[in-house]
Structure formats: structure tokens, C-alpha cells
């Protein structure tokens, strides 16, 4: 049992069963986040003190672009981060040992520009879609394209704002964005064409270094406990109550509104199913991002969420 388990917080999830007879080491675990919806449970777990209560010492490093996060990961400055399957595979392919430990709550939206007149996915055929190639954005777009059996042209604009403005000014026809940006764009006249969540496409993950996984298993278990507590908290609580935290982490004000109007609840940490995983790996290999194929077992370790 966890020695330092003196929490009196949310009762329902107080599953003190922790099959291991290990308690968290309390060593600092550094996690990289992006200002995206998927980071919210981690941020709230930290700010609400859930991590501390469970004796796990989490430190958050915020990044403004996935690229910087990747750089920090390579520099060995992070123990874990939010990311996606292809990023994990690419890192492993380059000799950095990582494992996917869970999915994240994430929803990518396909949007078309206000004056394009495009209101359905298939109308994107042959049009200019802006995204960052080789990563999750392209994968999701490719999945939709395969579904609708069309092709499209990529206009590479890595900068968030550049992409957004290019869309609003009708310089490109389509774009793929996560929340909170997607919602903002819809407010400003962009048309919503599809959602990865609705289409059941899941690529976003939490990943940790091999070292962290072997050295601090109890910390990770506790991490996910706290994570799930935070998800519960979010599902129960009006977002305005923690809007100051959102502001501190530079989420736009519209984020609260989005969270409150969100139809489905946030989900506890879950797995990426093997089928989905293999499809992504195949796609990544076809893009030349990885040199060999990786199996589900090689890249995943969901043992920490299976309480």
C-alpha cells in the first residue's frame, strides 16, 4: 500500500488497490505539454494537487509547437510527453527508447475556408489543404481522403496562426486543427467538415521513456490515477471554475465555453487498439518516416492504466 496515501479528495476513484507493493519514488517526472485539449487532465491534476496527493512529483514543461517538444525529448529533457503514434515510432526508429502508455482526449477537426463554399468532406477533392506533413495531421486527413476516395494538395504551413489566417482569408481551402483553435475558426466562419473522434480515428498518445517505465512504475501508476481523477473533475465541474488555470496555461477564453458545451464527456486514460496502431505504423512507414515496421508490443505498455 501507498505509504503516503493520505488523500481525502474525490472518493469514488479512491481505488487504493495498486497491485504493486511499490509506492511512488517521488522523483521528478518531467512531462511536455502543448496548449491543446489533450494536455488538460495533466495540467489540472498538477494544479489541483492530485499528483502531490498520490506522492508523484510531476513537472510540466509547456511547449508552443510539437517541434520544440520533439527537440526537448531528444535532448533528454523530458521523461514523458503528449504526442502521437507516429512520433513515438519515429523516435524509436532513431534510437530513442519510448513507449506509448495510453491515449489522450483529442479531437481533430477538418475545416474549410469561409468563402470556399465547401460544406462536405468530399468537396475537398483536388483542393488545397494546409497541414504539417508526416505527422498526425496528415494521417487523419489521409484517412478521410481514403474514406471518401479523393486526393488533395498539401500546402505546408507549420505555424498555427499562419494556417488559421490563411484559411480565414481563403488562401487555402481546407485545414485540420485540434481544439481549441478549431472552435475559434468555426466561430469566424469556417465550415466544419468532420471530426476524427466521430470517425473513430485515434492517434494521440501519452508516451514515456523506457527508462522512466522501468525505473518508476509506481510513479506512473499513480500518475494515471491522478490523471483519471482530473478527468472526473473535468466531467463534473463547470469549466469557469478552473478558468484561471486555463488562462495561466495560455488557453484562449473560448476554451471554457467549448468545454462546457462539449457533448461527450472526457474519458479516462485508455488504450490504442492494435488495429489502429498497425494502420498508423503502416502509414508512417509508407511516408519513409521509419525504416522498419514496429509491433504493438514493441511500442506500447498499457500496464499502468489497467489499474
Amino acid at each position: 500500500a501507498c505509504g503516503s496515501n493520505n488523500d481525502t479528495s474525490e472518493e469514488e476513484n479512491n481505488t487504493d488497490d495498486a497491485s504493486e507493493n511499490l509506492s511512488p519514488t517521488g522523483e521528478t517526472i518531467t512531462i511536455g505539454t502543448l496548449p491543446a485539449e489533450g494536455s488538460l487532465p495533466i495540467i489540472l491534476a498538477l494544479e489541483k494537487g492530485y499528483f502531490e496527493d498520490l506522492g508523484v512529483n510531476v513537472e510540466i514543461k509547456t511547449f508552443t509547437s510539437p517541434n520544440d517538444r520533439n527537440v526537448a525529448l531528444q535532448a533528454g529533457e523530458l521523461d514523458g510527453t503528449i504526442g502521437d503514434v507516429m512520433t513515438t515510432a519515429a523516435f524509436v526508429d532513431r534510437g530513442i527508447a519510448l513507449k506509448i502508455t495510453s491515449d489522450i482526449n483529442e479531437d481533430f477537426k477538418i475545416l474549410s475556408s469561409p468563402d470556399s463554399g465547401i460544406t462536405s468532406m468530399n468537396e475537398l477533392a483536388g483542393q488545397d489543404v494546409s497541414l504539417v506533413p508526416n505527422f498526425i495531421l496528415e494521417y487523419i486527413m489521409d484517412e478521410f481522403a481514403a474514406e471518401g476516395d479523393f486526393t488533395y494538395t498539401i500546402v505546408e504551413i507549420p505555424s498555427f496562426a499562419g494556417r488559421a489566417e490563411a484559411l480565414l482569408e481563403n488562401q487555402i481551402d481546407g485545414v485540420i486543427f485540434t481544439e481549441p483553435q478549431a472552435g475559434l475558426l468555426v466561430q469566424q466562419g469556417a465550415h466544419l467538415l468532420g471530426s476524427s473522434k466521430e470517425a473513430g480515428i485515434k492517434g494521440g498518445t501519452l508516451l514515456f521513456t523506457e527508462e522512466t517505465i522501468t525505473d518508476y512504475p509506481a510513479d506512473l501508476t499513480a500518475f494515471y490515477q491522478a490523471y483519471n481523477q482530473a478527468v472526473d473533475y473535468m466531467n463534473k465541474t463547470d469549466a469557469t471554475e478552473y478558468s484561471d488555470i486555463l488562462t495561466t496555461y495560455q488557453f484562449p477564453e473560448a476554451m471554457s465555453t467549448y468545454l462546457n458545451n462539449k457533448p461527450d464527456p472526457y474519458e479516462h486514460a485508455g488504450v490504442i487498439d492494435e488495429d489502429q496502431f498497425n494502420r498508423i505504423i503502416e502509414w508512417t512507414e509508407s511516408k519513409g518516416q521509419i525504416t522498419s515496421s514496429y509491433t504493438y508490443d514493441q511500442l506500447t505498455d498499457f500496464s499502468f492504466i489497467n489499474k
Partner: protein
Amino acid sequence: MSKLKRSFHQPLLIGFVLMIVIWYVLHLVIATRTIPAPVETFDYFFRHLNPLIIHMGASLLRVLVAVILALLIGLPIGIAIGRRKVLDKLLSPLLYVIYPIPKVAFLPVFMLLFGLGNVSKVMLMLFIIVFQLMLSVRDGVKDIPPHYFKVMQSFSAKRQHQYRYVVLPAILPRVFSSLRISIGISLATLFFAENYATTYGVGYFILSAWMKMNYVEMFSGIMALSLLGSVFFGFIDVLEKKLTPWL
């Protein structure tokens, strides 16, 4: 002091007023969300003065440290290259090769060597400005009339005396000039240096506003940056006047 103050504040004011006029005209003419109205931005700026001042402080410190380090490194090396033919032959081509490399591409190396904290941010800025400083100082030293060195030679002046009495005063105006450029560049660089592992700094503030597409917030960040820049520049102008009384 009051004279000092006057010569300092007035031009700053002019600069801001002009900037606001141009900004307003652009706002009206281009009529895009990405250029908010000045009034709106001012309102935001003053309402968020408190966090902004902290952001400005963080950035100020980083830039200051980077600039001071750049001077400590760039000045002696630039002078040495300008003075010694051998070093010029050897190092100038190296500078030419290194200078145009986008230092941001070495972020992984910086992070690896210096971590995610302030050290790596300062080092990144340092690396961006130090080569420019070296080149300018080198050019400045090369521009010193050779005749001045003959005069010093006639007094059998030791090396340190040549630096003390000729090189330093001669390049001082140039150093100020390239200090302005360095500071300008480092401020602009905050935008890249402050976009990881920090939640403080004007660069971070602007960037995150940009990502939120909150242009009013972004422009108040830009205003803060300009303010920071003008204060730096105004300070350098005053310092220059003080230290080069013969001009």
C-alpha cells in the same frame, strides 16, 4: 539628471505616437482581424499591466545577460580579428561560414547542453547575436586609420595601451551602433527562445497569444516588446552621448 531624463523620454514618446498613427492607418486600410485597433489594444495592455510587467522583466533579464555575454565574448574576438592579419585570414572565413546558419536549428544541441531553462534560452540568443557583433567590431577595427597605430608605435606603446588609447575609443561609436542591432535582434529572438519550457517572457506572451489567435493580446505583447526595445535604445543613446563626448 533631469536633462538626462528629458533627452530620453521625449523621443520615445515621438516614436510611440508615430507607431500608433501608422498602426491605426494600417488597421483602417487593411481592415483585418490580425491588426486590432490601437485603442482596444491599449485598453487590454493597461488592464493586464501587471502580468505584462513580469513578462517584460523576465525578458529584460534574459536579453541583458545575453547582450553582456555577447559583448564580453564578441568584443575581444572581433578586435583580435580586426587587428591581427593571421586571425583575420583564419577566422573571418569561419565567421562567414557560421554566421548565416540559422542558430535556431541547433536548438536540440542547446537543450542537450544547457537544459530547458534560462541558460539554454540565453545561450541561443547569445549565439545569434555574438557573430554579428564580432563582424561589426572587426569591421570597425579595420576602419581605424592605420596612422593612429603609427602614432602609438612612436610611443613604443604596449599592446594593452594601443587598445586602451586607440582601439577602444575608436570603435566605441561602432560598438554602440552594433549594440543597437544586437539588442534589436535579441528582442526579436525572444520569440524563438521563449517558446519552450517557460511561462514568462514577452516572447512567450506574444507567441501564446498568436496561437490563441488573440490578436489584441498579441499586439499588447508587441507593444510591451517595443517598449522594452525603446527603453534599451534610449539608454544606449544616453550612454553613447556620455561616453563619446568628442563627437
